[in-house]
């Protein structure tokens, strides 16, 4: 297990006049609702603890008012915690004085906001260079970095526009470029895509994932939308009434909801947009091309199957053969190479179930799953897909996914 990038211990925020009293009540096990009724204090975040690892997209999800925005602001102390600790790279942020805290905000953490929070009096490039300007980076250098960062989010040519002249999606790209220009280790994104309309939102999610491939930031991403959480999260923390009720990978959350609350959250989700080929694939029976038709036929007999996949020495997929064809080939003295079916439709381990229906329908054989160098990883059998979509956990390879 790598060292945690962000470590949060029992972080608590109580809004109101005498927050200390609220902490005592929380310790006595009172609920958010009871504390509000008894004292008028609002529990924003209730003893949240979690760790975020380097390079991870950690999603914090929950309904409106569950404390997500408060929690993410406790990480960079835009909101002062009432209790608890936050560590970044092992340093305790909650103990830092003004200068130290500012340094952490300048160098390590950048934030992207729900309503963009762009400076309307500054041009796009002036917005993007704001963080560097604050750090006193000289004009040429910060301009260049800001422009690079704008190019990264696809805003080349808009440097001298004002934010007000751009569409919502483009404005949020500026917000992202502004956050990236500092080259921070950590991105805090508070419902960064929630204000965008669905199509643009999906584009932005894809682009974020694509960017993440090359930048490998540690991202804390807030959302109230489970689909979004499942799409982009490596791990998801579910919040309710200020508390974290479950932390886990998307599969864990979907398949083992910790309680009724999570279950209700999860029940409407379309599994076919969450599960991938790697979750449902089975082991493929293979024969090396040079072994010949007799070996292939014997294998099919032993395993009781009607077809087998042909691979080369490197386990790269070459094709497949049917038992009937192999029988004839043996009679006619022909090789596997001559009779095998080539150009099989394939999917990758990351392909969503939702995206493989067409290929499944078009093929009489189970769909082979291959990696980027065409090595056969497994096959997709229709029954397993249907079982998984019906919520049958036995059809899932959760352990294999986590390795």
């Amino acid at each position, binding site marked *: 297990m790598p060292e945690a990038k962000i470590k949060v211990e029992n972080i608590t925020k109580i809004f109101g006049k005498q927050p200390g009293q609220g902490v005592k009540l929380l310790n006595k096990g009172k609920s958010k609702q009871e504390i509000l009724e008894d004292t008028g204090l609002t529990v924003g975040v209730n003893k949240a603890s979690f760790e975020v690892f380097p390079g991870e997209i950690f999603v914090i999800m929950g309904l409106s008012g569950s404390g997500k925005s408060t929690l993410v602001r406790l990480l960079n102390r*835009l909101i002062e915690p009432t209790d608890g600790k936050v560590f970044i790279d092992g340093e305790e942020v909650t103990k830092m004085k003004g200068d130290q805290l*500012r340094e952490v905000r300048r160098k390590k953490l950048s*934030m992207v906001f729900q309503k963009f*929070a762009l*400076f309307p009096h500054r041009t796009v490039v002036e917005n993007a260079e704001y*963080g560097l300007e*604050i750090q006193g980076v000289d004009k040429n250098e910060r301009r260049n970095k800001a422009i690079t960062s704008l190019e990264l989010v696809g805003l080349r040519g808009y440097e001298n526009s004002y934010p007000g002249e751009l569409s919502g999606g483009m404005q949020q790209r500026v917000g992202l470029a502004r956050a990236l220009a500092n080259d921070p280790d950590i991105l*805090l994104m508070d419902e960064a895509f929630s204000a965008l309309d669905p199509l643009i939102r999906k584009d932005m999610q894809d682009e974020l994932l694509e960017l993440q491939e090359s930048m490998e930031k540690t991202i804390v991403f807030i959302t109230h939308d489970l689909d979004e959480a499942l799409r982009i999260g490596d791990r998801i923390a579910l919040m309710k009434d200020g508390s974290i009720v479950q932390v886990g990978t998307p599969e864990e959350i979907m398949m083992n909801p910790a309680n009724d609350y999570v279950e209700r959250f999860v029940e409407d989700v379309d599994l076919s947009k969450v599960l991938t080929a790697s979750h449902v694939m089975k082991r493929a029976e293979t024969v090396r091309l040079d072994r010949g038709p007799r070996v292939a036929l014997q294998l099919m007999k032993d395993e009781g199957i009607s077809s087998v996949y042909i691979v080369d020495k490197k386990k790269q997929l070459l094709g497949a053969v049917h038992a009937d064809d192999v029988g004839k080939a043996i009679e006619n003295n022909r090789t596997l190479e001559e009779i095998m079916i080539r150009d099989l439709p394939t999917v990758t381990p990351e392909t969503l179930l939702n995206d493989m229906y067409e290929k499944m329908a078009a093929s009489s054989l189970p769909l082979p799953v291959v990696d980027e160098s065409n090595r056969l990883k497994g096959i997709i059998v229709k029954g397993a897909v249907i079982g998984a979509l019906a919520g049958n956990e036995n059809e899932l390879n959760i352990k294999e996914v986590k390795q």
Partner: protein
Amino acid sequence: MRLFPKIPLADWVDNFVSVLTERLEGFFDGVSSIIGWFVESIVNILSLVPSLVLIGIFVIIAWWTSRWGVALFTALGLLLIHNLGYWPETIDTLALVLTSVIISIIVGVPFGIWASQNETVKNIITPVLDFMQTMPAFVYLIPAILFFGIGVVPGIIASVIFAMPPTIRLTNLGIRQVPKDLIEASNAFGATTSQKLYKVELPLAMPTIMAGINQSIMLALSMVVIASLVGAPGLGADVYRAVTQIKVGVGFEAGLAIVILAIMLDRISQNIGRSKAD
């Protein structure tokens, strides 16, 4: 019929003022000579320029900051004043107003900023500003004379006291109205208080601050007649003389000149604020 003897409030104030005058004589003399020098310089510079050239400059400023309508009004208005023979007085008045407004800005904007950053300061300043504006402007003339004698300086001091409140108020308001999420964004990137002020709060508050300055200009203009009571020269003095000598015609001419000046300054300063906002 008195239950208590009269409280000697007037005596206390007299005493307070005379103590102040004695103790701070040097300070008041210093301030007085700086302000005096400043007004005089403005008058000298404006008088140095041939009057028609100066009118041309004002027209260009009006045209530059505002629409051509304002420029046309400025041209016709100033030419009329010139024609009526009130040009030197107009320059005196302009210098008086400009000086008052510049002092209002130099003192008022920092106070407004301070009040915007600090709740206690705001709570102290607000009633003081209410007091400054509701007190009849006339009353300021008395301490002004005591501390600064007779002439243009006490006139300016009284004008400043009367004209400064909107600048303070609207600077405070403008900064407080900057959207919270922008302040948050600025903090999130690690801005210091002064970086936040100069890079985010003041630029975004500028239109509101300019509206405050515009009001201050108008209030300073409204003080020119009162300032003339303590010996400040200019159009106000003409109006005052016309009133005391019941010369309706002269009073009308000088009054008209003040109105023309007022409209011109109002439009120009309003539009400076607006063009900055875009």
